[in-house]
């Protein structure tokens, strides 16, 4: 009994119970009529079914009426009462049952689209183990204090945003980045709340806690995005606002003019613009939710619609197309005698290269210059780098150091001239060759002799050519590269990526002007940048896309589309998903409008009656929802590029 009471108090369960009873009564009535030929049961059972299901509808209609709100429930209630009065018991039963059952199915399926985010919410960790006074204490994740040490055991969720101070592990970050391959975490790397520690014990210093974590921000951002109305939705809602009053008037007119009560009641039944009002939201919620799951944050419906219309894409070079950190790409050996204990073959070549890097790294180890760091990083794989005995930097030229009595110089020809070291013509030639390839080249000298040339360049991301292929396959014609870097370096990167349209040596406002110019040519322009120095161009573009947004709040908050990782292939994926969503919205709007038109025509011509009208109406709502849900289907197993038209 108590069970029944709690059931009754929950509107959802009560409705399910009423729907089931109503359906059962209808079934009994049909069995009675067609199998047992008991027509006199039939009407009574049908009326009972209508009253059972109708009671809940009438109750809700009454609640709305008290709020001075003419609801769809009220229209259905009037129609049902009317049908019972004129003796259309079957119609009354069918209308009320279909209305409740339809609403149940719709809420259930809509719930599934909403639940894609629920998945993210469930990722939120439930406990945290902190070290307090040297002891392990279990607390709620939001009770962790900033700066506290948190222990994360293998197989558990990381409870806070923070930095690893001890331990080594692989962490599944798919919740944040959409990347399924676990990320390697060692001392010094950042970790995010909600990601799963897979292998080892990690000691993490808490930085972001509770609502101040990347996960919480993503959820907030995604929900705000889903709630923001797309232009199509606003248009549809304006239409829908007039639709219901229009139908009520039409129904009134039908009684006055034709005295046809059946027609008037049927009009009331189809008075809800259900499929219309739901057509856009369902696609938007599904599209944005799906994108979020793949590490693509889209700011809102409007941006999703715009992104679906992109015809030109501008890419920033440094940090977007490239890794953003210089690395040694070429090692030229000029003095083969540097390697001690040479034993012939390619081995010697490798040994010599290592030696050039080794000596250069000793000299550069003390320097903070980015190029110095690239050299040290390149030499790191060989022997450990000793510390130089003496060290001196020449700003803009290079460094000079001594180690165990050896004199080392690394830098430009000017530096060599200052140090009194002759630069041979072969070295000069290599230097120039590297520079034409867009690289920064430095000379390495040991004890008064130039022993090698190092070429240093920012590295193109390996996925860049594949990204270009997919963008072009998707029919994106205009792809330009914008950079503040010099023309030679820019051209080298553009060639490697397969970009033909290059604008180099730009100031931030020049980038902005190029975006404006593209827009003036009639393009819908997207700009991909790192979110800070490209800010004006990102803001001017129709769609600003920020890369590697995990951990950088600014990008998550400001970019129209924020990609959580540095994966360039997310750009074509975001584009494709936006287009798919835009198409989905259009399909849904067409389905809804056509249904309304057909239904109205059918009713006015007397071809469609109450039960049929309700059935078609509810079916159209379901079709629209199911169509929207297609966007949720994972297509990871299919290469995103392969499904595009060639």
């Amino acid at each position: 009994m108590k069970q029944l009471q709690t059931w009754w108090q929950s509107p959802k369960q009560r409705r399910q119970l009423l729907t089931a009873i109503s359906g059962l009564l209808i079934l009994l009535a049909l069995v009675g009529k067609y199998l047992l030929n008991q027509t006199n049961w039939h009407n009574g059972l049908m009326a009972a079914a209508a009253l059972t299901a109708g009671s809940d509808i009438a109750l809700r209609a009454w609640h709305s009426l008290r709020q001075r709100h003419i609801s769809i429930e009220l229209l259905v209630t009037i129609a049902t009462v009317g049908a019972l009065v004129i003796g259309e018991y079957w119609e009354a039963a069918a209308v009320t049952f279909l209305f409740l059952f339809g609403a149940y199915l719709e809420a259930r399926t809509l719930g599934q689209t909403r639940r894609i985010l629920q998945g993210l919410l469930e990722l939120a960790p439930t406990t945290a183990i902190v070290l307090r006074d040297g002891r392990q204490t279990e607390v709620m994740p939001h009770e962790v204090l900033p700066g506290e040490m948190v222990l994360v055991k293998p197989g558990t969720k990381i409870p806070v945003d923070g930095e690893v101070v001890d331990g080594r592990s692989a962490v599944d970050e798919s919740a944040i980045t959409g990347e399924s391959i676990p990320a390697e975490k060692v001392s010094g790397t950042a970790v995010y709340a909600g990601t799963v520690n897979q292998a080892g014990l990690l000691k993490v210093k808490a930085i972001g806690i509770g609502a101040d974590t990347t996960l919480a921000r993503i959820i907030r951002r995604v929900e705000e995005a889903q709630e923001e109305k797309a232009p199509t939705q606003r248009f549809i809602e304006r239409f829908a606002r007039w639709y219901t009053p229009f139908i009520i008037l039409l129904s009134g007119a039908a009684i006055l003019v034709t005295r046809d009560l059946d027609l008037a009641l049927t009009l009331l039944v189809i008075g809800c613009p259900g499929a219309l009002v739901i057509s856009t939201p369902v696609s938007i919620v599904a599209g944005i939710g799906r994108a979020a799951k793949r590490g693509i944050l889209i700011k809102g419906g409007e941006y999703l619609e715009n992104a679906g219309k992109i015809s030109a894409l501008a890419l920033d070079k440094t940090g977007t197309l490239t890794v953003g950190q210089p690395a040694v790409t070429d090692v030229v050996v000029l003095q083969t005698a540097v390697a001690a204990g040479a034993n012939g073959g390619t081995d010697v070549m490798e040994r010599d290269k290592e030696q050039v890097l080794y000596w250069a790294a000793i000299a550069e180890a003390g320097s903070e210059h980015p190029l110095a760091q690239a050299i040290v990083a390149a030499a790191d794989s060989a022997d450990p780098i000793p510390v130089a005995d003496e060290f001196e930097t020449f700003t803009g030229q290079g460094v000079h150091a001594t180690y165990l009595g050896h004199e080392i110089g690394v830098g430009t020809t000017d530096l060599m001239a200052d140090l009194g070291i002759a630069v041979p013509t072969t070295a000069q030639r290599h230097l120039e060759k590297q520079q034409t390839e867009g690289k920064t080249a430095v000379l390495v000298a040991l004890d008064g002799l130039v022993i090698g040339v190092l070429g240093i360049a920012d590295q193109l991301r390996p996925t860049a050519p594949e990204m270009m292929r997919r963008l072009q396959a998707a029919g994106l014609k205009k792809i330009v590269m914008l950079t503040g870097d010099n023309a030679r370096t820019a051209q080298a990167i553009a060639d490697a990526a397969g970009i033909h349209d290059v604008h180099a040596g730009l100031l931030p406002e020049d980038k902005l002007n190029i975006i404006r110019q593209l827009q003036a040519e009639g393009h819908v322009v997207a700009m991909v940048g790192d979110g800070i120095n490209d800010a004006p161009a990102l803001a001017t573009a129709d769609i600003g896309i920020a890369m590697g947004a995990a951990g950088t709040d600014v990008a998550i908050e400001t970019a129209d589309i924020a990609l959580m990782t540095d994966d360039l292939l997310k750009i074509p994926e975001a584009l494709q998903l936006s287009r798919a969503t835009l198409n989905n919205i259009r399909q849904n709007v067409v389905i809804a409008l056509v249904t309304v038109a057909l239904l109205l025509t059918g009713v006015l011509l007397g071809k469609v009656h109450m039960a049929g009208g309700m059935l078609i109406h509810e079916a159209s709502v379901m079709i629209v929802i199911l169509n929207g849900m297609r966007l949720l289907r994972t297509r990871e197993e299919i290469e995103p590029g392969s499904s595009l038209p060639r």
Partner: protein
Amino acid sequence: MKTLLRSQDLSCPSCVAKIENALQKLDGVTNAKVHFNTGRIEIEHDPDAAPTAKLVQTVRETGYEAAVAAF
């Protein structure tokens, strides 16, 4: 105080105004916003005059189940 409810029951946007009105008519509720797309219900209220349980009850009376959510 700001409280967030989540409902999985919203099936037609027509319910939005109904729930908002019912909540706003409560003493102690200064603002209520229903987001149909996500099923979120944001309420600004005075927890003494309008406790959270009362909010859930009010939404329930309009015919929809909702539960308090952390974020």
